[in-house]
């Protein structure tokens, strides 16, 4: 059996007396689209920063294709293909869309690769050609999010971590971005981990959901299974009513 694309083992994180994460473990199969959800303050962002390398865990390990990368610096994770976006879009503001993507391309393209061609192909794939010579301030939020995804997948990307990429978008824009992400996953085999605090948008794209609550994993399974998990319902609504009605998880009732 091949190693999971990403695995976290017994991750713990304390900030002084505050326990942000307690013994969090799960793995992401190669080629999977996985959602990581949880109410505000559940520890999603902390976990995300630990996986991408901006925070060191107090305990536990992060494995990337079976290899321990817990203490690998951020830039080396990116060059190895572990890529991310940011909750609040962080582009290089004085650089054009094309240059933004080129930065990452030139860092992570395998030796001998034509980075000019790679930049153009990323622009084309995300349909950003017309925005290529504009500055981030001159394009819409949806396009800025796309540029960030482009910057993340450019060059060499095997696992894409998306931090609330859909927040702040209109319904149509979110739909479009979801289809782009699904297409990336299908066409390039990129493993995707999506962090959201709202489940509704995720149900359409993910094959599996991990739910974080109070610093630990409370559910791990298909969206349908997770939606019926009493602990999840409790965590999200504090009542026994189903957290995810038929509108947001179409297959929840059919299952």
């Amino acid at each position, binding site marked *: 059996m091949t190693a999971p694309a990403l695995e976290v083992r017994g991750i713990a994180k304390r900030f002084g007396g505050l326990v942000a994460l307690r013994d969090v473990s799960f793995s992401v199969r190669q080629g999977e689209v996985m959602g990581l959800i949880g109410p505000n303050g559940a520890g999603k962002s902390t976990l995300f920063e630990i996986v*991408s390398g*901006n925070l060191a865990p107090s305990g536990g390990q992060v494995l990337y294709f079976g290899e321990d990368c817990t203490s690998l*610096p*951020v*830039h080396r994770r*990116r*060059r190895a293909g572990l*890529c*991310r976006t*940011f909750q609040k879009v*962080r*582009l*290089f*503001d*004085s*650089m*054009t869309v*094309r*240059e933004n993507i*080129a*930065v*990452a391309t*030139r*860092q*992570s393209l395998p030796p001998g690769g*034509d980075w*000019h*061609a790679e*930049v*153009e192909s990323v622009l084309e794939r995300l349909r950003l050609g017309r925005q290529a010579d504009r500055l981030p301030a001159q394009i819409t939020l949806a396009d800025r999010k796309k540029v960030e995804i482009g*910057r*993340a997948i450019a*060059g060499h990307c095997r696992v894409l971590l998306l931090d609330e990429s859909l927040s702040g978008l209109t319904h149509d824009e979110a739909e479009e971005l979801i289809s782009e992400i699904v297409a990336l996953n299908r066409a390039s085999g990129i493993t995707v981990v999506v962090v959201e605090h709202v489940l509704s948008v995720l149900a359409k794209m993910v094959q599996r959901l991990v739910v974080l609550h109070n610093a630990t994993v409370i559910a791990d399974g298909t969206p349908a299974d997770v939606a019926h998990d009493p602990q999840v319902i409790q965590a999200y609504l504090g009542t026994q009513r189903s957290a995810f009605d038929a509108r947001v998880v179409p297959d929840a009732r059919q299952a």
Partner: protein
Amino acid sequence: MPTGAATAPRPFAPPRARLRAWPLVPLLLVALLPALPWVNNYILAVTVRALIFIALGQAWNIVAGIGGLLSLGHGVFLGLGCYVTGILFNDLGVPPWLGVPAGMLVAVVVALAMGGMTLRVRGVFFALATVAVSLACDQLARHYVDLTGGDNGLALTFLGTSLWAMQSRSPAPFVYAGLAFVVAFYWITRGILASRFGLEMRAVRDDEVAAAASGVRVFRTKLLGFMISAAMTALAGGLYMQYYQAIDPESAFGLGQAIQLQLPALIGGLGTAAGPILGGALMTVLSETTNWGASSFGLVGVDILVYGLVLLLVVLWAPAGIVGMLRRR
């Protein structure tokens, strides 16, 4: 699919980076200055001062303009360039041909030590450290009187016009030397801006966290930029020393000098290749004409007032400098 490398667009030739012929006009004008009959030594001296001022600004622009690292103590590298060159020449008879590279080497080592300690943390610590090192150098230069001449500074032993000692009674040779420096630094700046390293520096300037997440080695990029800038400053310092023939702690490590070093790039346009040239030229013309005008009324030091005023205007109305104003039109 693109049909091949020949048709692939060049992403990093921004529209304005095309070569134009007009910059050759001022270049030729300055080069011809010493040959013109009505040009006196005063005009030549001002030209040399301007060229040195510009070259120092170009060096600072690398780290502060392209890299976004606010070095408030670049006088350290100017001073090291001057003092090392001067001490080697006076005490050991080493010509500046070797003294200046030695000064550059010392500057790079000091930059490595300063950067190694402060560039891992963000922003203000680096700026403070550069100020602290300036103050320390100032004290050292004043303390070791035998070596540096103390408060009075260091004057080169003058051998008359000599290529070996890089000395000349007339300012004309320095016009050409200064011009060569400015042109070389201009091309170095353009080269960096167009390179992968320049792209990394700009990414780090805009957002360090996002740069790291894009695979950029942030610390190494900042350190390398700082060292390149230090070497260029010390090199221009060598020219400074040979032209002025003297250096003292205040001119090397003083606050006034530190601010002077930043003016050309700040006024001309941070992070651009042409900015320090335009800024330095404008400031020289302004300060010379106001000083000349004011001295007829018995006023001294009006140039400092002009510097302050222009800087204020730039900060308020043209944060992108002269280049930014030209581009906006």
